C-alpha cells in the first residue's frame, strides 16, 4: 500500500464514473474497442480539469525556437520534454489504459453480474505438487545444500566448535535438509466458448456487428472469470464449418439455414476436445431465427436436450432481428426447451439491446 493509493483510487473512481455513464453508448460503438498488443484496451478519457479563469488557448500568440519560414506550420502544442514534472496541466487528453480485467470488472459492476462459481460440488479439483517445503528427511537427490550447510554452521557456532581460522563445516545427519513438496488443490477452471453464428444470406452487416460486439463483451467477462479460456468459432448456413475468429466475423455466405448442422458440430467438438467433466462449456448461438423447414428444428431440439444442454454450463441463444428472418426459431426453442434452467434465450432487436442481452446470458453466474 503506497501513501498515494487512496488518492489514485479516488481518481480512478471518478474516472470510472465517467466510464459508467458512457458505458452504454460505448458498447454500441464497437469500433472504439480494439485489442491492442497484450490485453490492453485504450480508452481515451479526458483528464479532469478544474476550471479557472484562463486565456483561450488559440487566441494566444507565443514564442518558439528553431528553423522555419514565415507561415510555416509548427509542430503541435506539445508538452515540454523536461526532466522535471510539469506543473501545468497540458491541453491533452490523457490516455487512461484500462486493462481487460478492469474493463470486465466495470462491466461486472455495471451489469451486476455474479462471479461465476467453480462448477458445483462435483467440480474438478486438481492436485498439484509443488516443491516448496523443507523436510528433515528425504532422498539424497533432494538434499538442499545451502540449508544443510547453514544448519551445520549454526550448530557449530552454537556449540563453539567453529574455528574462524580453520572454517570447516561438517554436516551431521540431523543437519541435513531436504526439499519436499506441498500438495495444493487447484480448482480446475478451464472454459471454452463455442460461438456459433448463422451466416446465411439474411444475416447482414448490422446483424454481424451486433454479434461481434456482444461476443467481445461476453469474451471479456468470461476471460476475467477463467484463467484458461478457449474459443471455437462455428459458422453455418446449410452446412457448418469450424473457422478462426477473423473469418467468423467477416465471412458472408448465402444460402439456406440448417441449424442442426452447427449443433452437430458443437456436439462433436465437445466429445472430442472438451470433456464436460473438465471443462466449463459455454455455447453461444446467434441467428436471425430463420431455420430450414421440415424436421430440422425438431432435430435441433433433440440435440440440445440430449447432448448440448447437459454438457454445457449454460446454452445461450441470441436471436438478432433481421429484415428477412421469420424469427420462428426462438419460439420453437421456448416451447421445446424453454423450461430448462440452463437454456438462456434472448432477442436482440437493436444495438441498444446488447447490454440487456449480455445481462440475460450472464446473470445466472453458472
Amino acid at each position, binding site marked *: 500500500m503506497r501513501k498515494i493509493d*487512496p488518492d489514485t483510487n479516488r*481518481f480512478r473512481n471518478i474516472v470510472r464514473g465517467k466510464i459508467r455513464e458512457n458505458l452504454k453508448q460505448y458498447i454500441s460503438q464497437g469500433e472504439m474497442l480494439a485489442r491492442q498488443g497484450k490485453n490492453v484496451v485504450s480508452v481515451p478519457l479526458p483528464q479532469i480539469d478544474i476550471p479557472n479563469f484562463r486565456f483561450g488557448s488559440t487566441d494566444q*500568440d507565443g514564442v518558439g525556437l528553431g528553423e522555419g519560414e514565415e507561415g510555416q506550420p509548427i509542430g503541435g502544442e506539445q508538452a515540454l520534454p523536461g526532466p522535471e514534472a510539469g*506543473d501545468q496541466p497540458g491541453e491533452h487528453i490523457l490516455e487512461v489504459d484500462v486493462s481487460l480485467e478492469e474493463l470486465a470488472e466495470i462491466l461486472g459492476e455495471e451489469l451486476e453480474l455474479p462471479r461465476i462459481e467453480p462448477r458445483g460440488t462435483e467440480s474438478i479439483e486438481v492436485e498439484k505438487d509443488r516443491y516448496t517445503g523443507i523436510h528433515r528427511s528425504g532422498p539424497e537427490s533432494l538434499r538442499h545444500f545451502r540449508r544443510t550447510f547453514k544448519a551445520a554452521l549454526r550448530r557449530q557456532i552454537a556449540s563453539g566448535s567453529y574455528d574462524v581460522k580453520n572454517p570447516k563445516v561438517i554436516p551431521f545427519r540431523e543437519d541435513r535438509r531436504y526439499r519436499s513438496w506441498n500438495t495444493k488443490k487447484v480448482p480446475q477452471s478451464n472454459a471454452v466458448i463455442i460461438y456459433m453464428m448463422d451466416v446465411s444470406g439474411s444475416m447482414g452487416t448490422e446483424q454481424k456487428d451486433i454479434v461481434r460486439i456482444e461476443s467481445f463483451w461476453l469474451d471479456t467477462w468470461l476471460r476475467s472469470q477463467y484463467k484458461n479460456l478457449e474459443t471455437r468459432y462455428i459458422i453455418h448456413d446449410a452446412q457448418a464449418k469450424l473457422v478462426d475468429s477473423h473469418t467468423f466475423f467477416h465471412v458472408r455466405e448465402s444460402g439456406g439455414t440448417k441449424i442442426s448442422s452447427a449443433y452437430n458440430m458443437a456436439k462433436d467438438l465437445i466429445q472430442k476436445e472438451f470433456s464436460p467433466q473438465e471443462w466449463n462449456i459455454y455455447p453461444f448461438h446467434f441467428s436471425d431465427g430463420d431455420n430450414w423447414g421440415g424436421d430440422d428444428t425438431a432435430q435441433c431440439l433433440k440435440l440440445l436436450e440430449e447432448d448440448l444442454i447437459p454438457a454445457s454450463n449454460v446454452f445461450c441463444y441470441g436471436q438478432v432481428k433481421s429484415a428477412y428472418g421469420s424469427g420462428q426459431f426462438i419460439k420453437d426453442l421456448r416451447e421445446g426447451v424453454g423450461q430448462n434452467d440452463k437454456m438462456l434465450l434472448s432477442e436482440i432487436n437493436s444495438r441498444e439491446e446488447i447490454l440487456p442481452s449480455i445481462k440475460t446470458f450472464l446473470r445466472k453466474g453458472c
Partner: protein
Amino acid sequence: MLQNSALTPEIEEWRGTIRQHALDCGLDFFEVIYELVDYDEMNMIAAYGGFPVRYPHWRWGMQFEALQKQYSYGLAKIYELVINNDPCYAYLMRCNPLVDQKLVMSHVYGHSDFFKNNSWFSHTNRKMVDTISNHAVRIRRHIDEHGQDAVEEFIDVCLSLENLIDPHLPYFSARAASPEVDQEDTSSGKPATRIPARPYMEVFVNPPEVLAREKEEILNRAEDTQKFPEHEERDVLRFLLHHGQLRRWQRDVLSIIREEAYYFIPQGMTKIMNEGWASFWHSRMMTRKILDSSEVVDYADHHSGTLCCSPGSVNPYKVGIELFRDIEQRWDSGRHGKAWESCEDLHGKTEWDDGKRRGMEKIFEVRKSHNDITFIDEFLTEDFCDQHKLFNYRYDRQMGQYVLDGRDFATIKRTFLDQLSNCGRPRIHVEDGNYCNRGELLLQHVWSGTPLKLDYARRTLENLYRVWGRPVHIETQIDGKTKILGYNGSRHDERTNA
C-alpha cells in the same frame, strides 16, 4: 515503505566532492539533503508537488497515474526534484547510473543557491515541508468532521480560484503582514479634531465654524471611501477569505490553498532563470571538474536531452542557460552599454573586448535581483534572437494550427513578455464587493488583448458563487466589446456594461 533512502557510499562520496566544487564556484546554498528513491516513490513525490505529505485529494492520484504511465511507456522520466526549503530536499532515482546522479546533484546545488539568494524567493516559507504536512493534518481533521466528499468538493472550488492572487503582494510586507484588516475606522464619524482648552478660551482655540468644516470634510471623505474595497484588490483570495460567506472549516481550507499558492508562485515567476542557472552550473561543474572520460557520451546525451526544444514552445532550460552564458560573455568583454550599442563598425564589434572580465560577477548579480520578466526584458538582445533562431507564432484559423509568424525582434520580445506577465494568467482583481449596492461581487479582468476562455470562465463563476454566497460577475471583453458575465446561483447571464 521508504526502504532505505540513504545514499550509497559511492554517491555519498561524490556528494561531498560536488558540494565542494559548488562552494568553490561561489555558490551559496541551503544545505541539500538527498534521498535515494525508487521510480514510483519519485513519481509519488512529484505528484504531490515535491512534498512527501499532502492532504488527501484526487488530483495527486491523477498526476501520479500520468507520471507512472509516462515512465512505464518510456515517454518521460523525472530526473530531479528539489524543494525550496531550508534545508533543501532533493531526490535521486535509485536506478539511475552514477553519471546521472552526478548531473542531478550538481544541478540541484544550482537550484538551492537560487532559492537562497534570488530576492523573489526571499519571502517564501523556508519551513514549507513542515507547514505543508501541518496543512495535511488540518484538512484531515476537517475530513473527519465533515466527510471526504464535502471537503474534497470544497477544495476543488478553492483550486478553481487558486490563481486569483497577487504575485507581488509578498514584497509589500506591510499589506501582507496584516491579514486581519480593520475596516472600522472610517465609518465611526467621530467629531473633528477638537483641541482641549479652558472654557473661556474654547471659542478661540476651537472656533465652531472650523470644527463644522472639518467635520464635514471627514464625512465627505467617509463617503468617498464607501467604495468597497477601497482599492482594487488583486489578492482575490484574501478578499474572499475575509468577506466570503464561508463556514469556519471552509475558511481554513481556503486559507491553506492560498498559502500554498503563494509559496509556489516565485517558482512560476523565475522558471527560466532558475532552470537556466542550475543548468549553467551543472554544465560547468560536470565538464570542468566532475566527469570521468568514460561518462562524457552519456552526459552529453542527457544534457542535450534536457535542453532540446520542440518547435512551438520555449524550453526554459535552453533559453535560461543560453542567456546566462550570453551575459557572462558580454560582460567579460564589455559588450554592453552605450558605447557598444552605438558602435557601428563591424570589425570593431567583432574584436570588441574591454578586458574587464566582469562576466561572473554580473551573472551572480543577475540571479540575485531579477525574475523572468525583467531577465528577458533586460538581456534578450537582437543578436541573441538571431543566434538562437527565436520566432513568434500565432494561431491560423484557416489552417487550424499554429504557424510561424515572423522573426521580428521587437515582436518576439513583446510576445515573450506577454506570455510571462502574471505567469501567463489573466490579471483579475476585485473591483466592487458591493456591486449594484446589493452585496454582489464584481471582478475586473484587466484587458491585455487576449480573451478569456469563456466556458471555463462561466464554470469558475459558479465556484466563485459558492464562496461569495451572492451573485458574482466578471467584467471582460468578448469580441472587442466590454461585457459583464454573471452568475446568480441558478442562471448565467451576459450583458454589456450599463
